[in-house]
């Protein structure tokens, strides 16, 4: 049910991403300290941890936006013609000067996909995210939740092998978050891309993830990796009534509580 052991735990499926002894320093400050983890192909991997523990830093390194100080990252077998990863950024990141459609088509256009293919894929993901009616709206005409959907549609439409998502729902209210979590699972269950999902919400981590890495802060370390036993497809609301749900949430809170107390002392 859970690995419970050291941060490095053997994955059952072949690893898509293999992070070895990754360390990141900003000047003298250690943001990430010796992180080693395997992320299985096609799995939904969640990273949860207190603010400032280095979640975004880790994701940016995985996404090739920042360099690591030490360590290795291996990403297995990129299929030809498909981009390796897309990022859903923390906070608003869709282009204000593009319509919903153009935003969603951005990745495909950047890699010069044929127009017919681009149109079909964009149409598909706008439909999946409930944005078809708003295709020609500009971001300032949308609500925060809708903008976040555009960001997700943009990442999925790029058809990457790996999706890197940085707290995509944290700015949303409870209801919108629940709805979008369900939508995300539905889209993801279609084609099971490898997902690395960051959140600081324990509930969200348990709801979405196959495995959860709990991080500790200053320096950012992988504290423990926990397997989530729920079968797929999942129903976000029904899941919460499962007795095992409370157990896992409680356990993770235990690890995080240590963290908070340690940070205070």
């Amino acid at each position, binding site marked *: 049910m859970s690995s419970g052991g050291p941060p490095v735990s053997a994955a059952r499926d072949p690893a898509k991403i293999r992070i070895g002894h990754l360390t990141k320093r900003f000047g003298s400050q250690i943001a990430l300290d010796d992180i080693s983890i395997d992320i299985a192909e096609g799995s939904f991997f969640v990273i949860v941890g207190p603010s400032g523990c280095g979640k975004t830093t880790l994701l940016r390194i995985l996404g090739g936006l920042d360099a690591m100080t030490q360590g290795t990252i291996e990403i297995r077998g990129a299929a030809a013609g498909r981009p390796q*990863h897309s990022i859903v950024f923390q906070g608003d990141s869709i282009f204000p000067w593009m319509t919903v459609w153009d935003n969603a088509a951005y990745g495909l256009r950047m890699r010069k996909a044929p127009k017919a293919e681009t149109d079909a894929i964009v149409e598909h993901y706008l439909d999946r995210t409930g944005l078809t009616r708003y295709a020609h709206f500009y971001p300032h005409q949308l609500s925060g939740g809708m903008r976040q959907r555009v960001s997700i549609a943009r990442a999925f439409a790029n058809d990457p092998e790996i999706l890197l998502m940085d707290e995509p729902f944290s700015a949303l209210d409870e209801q919108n978050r629940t709805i979008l979590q369900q939508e995300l699972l539905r889209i993801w269950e279609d084609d099971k891309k490898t997902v690395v999902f960051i959140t600081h919400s324990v509930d969200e981590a348990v709801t979405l993830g196959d495995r959860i890495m709990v991080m500790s802060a200053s320096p950012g370390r992988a504290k423990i990796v926990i397997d989530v036993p729920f079968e797929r497809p999942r129903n976000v609301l029904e899941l919460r009534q499962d007795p095992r749900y409370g157990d896992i949430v409680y356990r993770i809170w235990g690890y995080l509580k240590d963290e908070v107390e340690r940070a205070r002392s």
Partner: protein
Amino acid sequence: MDLDERARRWERRRDRLINVASPLGLVLAWEVAAQLGLIDTRFFPAPSSVAVALLASVHSGELANHVLMSLQRLFIGFVLGGVPALALGIVMGISRPVRAFIDPLIAATYPIPKSSIMPLILLVFGLGEGSKIIMVAIGVFYPVAINATAGVLQINCIYLDVGKSFNAGRWDTFRTIALPGALPFIMTGVKLGVGLGLVLIAVAEMVGAKSGIGYMIWSAWETFSVERMYVGLFAIAMIGFALTAALNEIERRIIPWKADS
């Protein structure tokens, strides 16, 4: 169409109406003051007598001729100064080394009043068309370049990260992020540049020109025909007004993502 949209449209129409009403009010007050002898009509002739002179110069085709000449110089100068300014400004915004290189040059030359280099320009380019166009080009160059740089620099880093994460190349980054992201600032620069260009073309045409609005005003002064001078001033005001209106309309069209305000 919902109520909100209708209210906003009404507000826009109201704003335009006020835009037109305020100069009309000024002219009306002036006419009344001139008729009542409250102002010296040797220096401030009544708008009605200016209108007579205006009609005469419209009739003879003189006015249209001068206006077209000025507009032509303004346009060529604008393209000549604005296009390189736009390119350089954006490149400065994107590239730190280029910025480090060009910034001090701009900072050192920008504060020089453009009209004060007129004699130098005349010396280099002679009394012909060249010097007039160069004056406008110089005037347009600075605000466009400076605003384009500022426009690129204020683009939120996250958009550049997005571009990078989607493997946008240099040209695509320029085309899809730097340019549209900086466009609102660039439009501000263009408006300032056109305004400055209009000032400079009028000044430039007062020296060694045989046509253009500036020449018309200057020759009116030389012949003491105050009404004609006012016709020239009126024409230049109208050009400024029309250009501003046109630029605002262009801005509305090319920046549709800007929230109506």
